[in-house]
């Protein structure tokens, strides 16, 4: 049963990724991206990452994608007649060659490595989110704090960028 689910999730996520890049209308691209995010979450469940699958749905599909769709609706973009770069064929050709090379390299690798201690049984005893939380607030505390500061900076940056200039600002600018 597992290979069937994997084949479904993998196939649909690849197809919706290609549709996101290839579709002409930006709103349809957003919907294709939504499908991609949902099926990646399904792949996370297959990989025993239940907490991450939930986060993927809540944050990616629920917050980030909605932000994209809001901006698309607000800007009211016309669908352009020419929506690709002029020399896009060369880019696609180059990337296709790199892809073939990459696939050959992937198939030749043997993926050996030292196994860690967090086997499925050990994680199941406390639950996936508890195990991730313990790791995040002990070993990864400094990166966690840095991400907090980064998000604060992103909030301030987004507000400052989109703020309407007031009359006083314009006068100060001119004087």
């Amino acid at each position: 049963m597992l290979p069937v689910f994997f084949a479904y999730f993998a196939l649909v996520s690849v197809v919706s990724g290609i549709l996101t890049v290839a579709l002409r209308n930006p709103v349809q691209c957003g919907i294709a991206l939504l499908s991609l995010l949902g099926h990646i979450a399904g792949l996370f469940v297959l990989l025993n990452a239940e907490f991450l699958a939930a986060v993927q749905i809540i944050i990616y599909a629920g917050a980030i994608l909605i932000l994209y769709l809001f901006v698309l609706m607000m800007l009211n973009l016309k669908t352009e007649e020419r929506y690709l770069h002029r020399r896009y064929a060369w880019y696609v050709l180059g990337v296709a060659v790199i892809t073939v090379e990459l696939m050959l390299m992937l198939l030749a690798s043997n993926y050996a490595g030292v196994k860690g201690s967090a086997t499925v049984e050990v994680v199941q005893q406390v639950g996936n989110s508890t195990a991730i939380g313990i790791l995040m607030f002990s070993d990864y505390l400094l990166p966690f704090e840095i991400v907090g500061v980064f998000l604060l900076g992103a909030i301030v940056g987004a507000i400052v960028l989109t703020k309407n200039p007031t009359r006083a600002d314009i006068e100060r600018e001119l004087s």
Partner: protein
Amino acid sequence: MIPLSAYVAVSAILFVTGVVGVLVRRNFIIVLMSIEIMLNAANLNLVAFANHLQSLSGQVVALFVIAIAAGEAAVGLAIIIVVFRGKIATNVDQIDLLKW
């Protein structure tokens, strides 16, 4: 049991799709969406290796990647709104204010 190379192959295909989207599309918002595809491919890779190597570190780093993606989306869309308000087009090959 699904081999690790299957997940890595899916992730590689998605990443390459995102690269093509960044290089080929003219619409700024679609370029940002392609960057999201690439971040998702990286996340899939991290989680697949975390499962393979029986370590939770990959999942924690994937969470950080999601947080970074949220910040990047917020700032990128703010830049798009500013550029659009200044009556400049939203196609990446027409935004050349800083070019001289």
